[in-house]
């Protein structure tokens, strides 16, 4: 893990990058990184995120600034601006069942070839996908999902990069921290090694590439 400033962290991200963003309706989302992406005007992004939050919050700000060209998400109903951009075909949106979304990212991070899920069989979601029969039951083969970057928000990060999350802010952060080439983390608190007990580490340090230093003073 390398400590990095907010500006340098975002400067690493090229236009057109694919980015996983942790959070669920803005809860547990790396808000400072998203703000900085807007400030630096990174554009034509592929965003992989549970939802589009709401205008003005979290990942929603990327839609306010029209920086997204492709979205993979489970639900964007609470962001009318993202919906509008989708219906106007300014962004391509793949809407994915939430459990499938979580599992596809986990598969990407765990080296699995895809996911065999009963979810979506017999629905629009199955269109164009392979059905695999196992013991007489049908499952959809859903592709593993990875990205160039994962932007992860932790509650605690220690000096080595071990992470823990709090309450419902955990959500997609741990699976995303395994499924990207470069993992950039913000944390509410950066703490000495040992503050997070070994049994309470939720993302082990070797998964973290960069930890954004907290504003000091």
């Amino acid at each position: 893990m390398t400590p990095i400033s907010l500006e340098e962290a975002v400067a690493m991200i090229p236009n057109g990058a694919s980015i996983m963003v942790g959070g669920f309706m803005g809860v547990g989302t790396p808000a400072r990184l998203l703000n900085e992406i807007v400030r630096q005007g990174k554009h034509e992004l592929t965003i992989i995120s549970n939802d589009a939050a709401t205008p003005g919050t979290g990942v929603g700000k990327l839609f306010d600034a029209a920086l997204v060209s492709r979205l993979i998400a489970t639900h964007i109903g609470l962001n009318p601006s993202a919906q509008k951009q989708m219906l106007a075909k300014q962004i391509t949106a793949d809407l994915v069942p939430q459990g499938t979304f979580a599992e596809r990212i986990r598969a990407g991070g765990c080296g699995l070839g895809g996911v065999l899920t009963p979810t979506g069989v017999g629905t629009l979601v199955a269109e164009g996908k392979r059905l695999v029969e196992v013991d007489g039951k049908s499952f959809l083969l859903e592709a593993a999902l990875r990205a160039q970057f994962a932007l992860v928000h932790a509650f605690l990060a220690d000096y080595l990069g071990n992470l823990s999350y709090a309450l419902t802010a955990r959500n997609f952060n741990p699976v995303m921290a395994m499924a990207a080439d470069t993992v950039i983390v913000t944390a509410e608190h950066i703490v000495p090694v040992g503050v997070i007990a070994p049994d309470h580490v939720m993302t082990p340090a070797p998964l973290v590439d960069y930890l954004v230093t907290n504003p000091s003073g």
Partner: protein
Amino acid sequence: MDAQEIIARRVARELRPGNLVNLGIGIPTLVANYVSADLKVFFQSENGLIGTGPIPEQGLEHPLLTDAGGRPISALPGASTFDSAMSFGLIRGGHVDVTVLGGLQVDGQGRLANWMIPGKMVPGMGGAMDLVAGAKRVIVAMQHAAKGKSKIVVECNLPVTSARPVDLVVTDLAVIGFADGKATLLETAPGVSVGEIMAVTDAELVVRESVPEMKI
């Protein structure tokens, strides 16, 4: 008692001690108001919590403790948190005993449509498809009709949420089951006749000789 309260009270009676229950937004959320704490039902919020409690007192909200809509909730003693892969492992793996979901349409075989209206409302399915595919029991809580049109249809013309039929539909007028693959009238709402139900039900409805009245 208004329509929503009738539905929520009736659905609440389906929950058993120790059940793990996931409530969708809308009418399903109201069900929690009618479940006694003695029943020790566990409510799951699919954003990563078992043991959701009531909305916290003002000033005690925590920004990192919310429901799937991002609204502040509380956690009861014995609550547990987890990531989204685990949350949907619980759902898809059949560990959720009951899910209660809203509906746009349910057809004569029990298939539910509740996630999109083509060309109009395309919000994404969120967790709905996993819940219908994976929960042990799926209960739909919805108004029987909307704008005079039956929501219990012969065949869904909206995209279905799952090929798996739901187990029970509870409306302001009736309780309908699908145990043998056919819509069967199980109960009538207080003061509602079988004839009134038939009049606003498009799907073919099996009606047994005597249909008991809902207890709520």
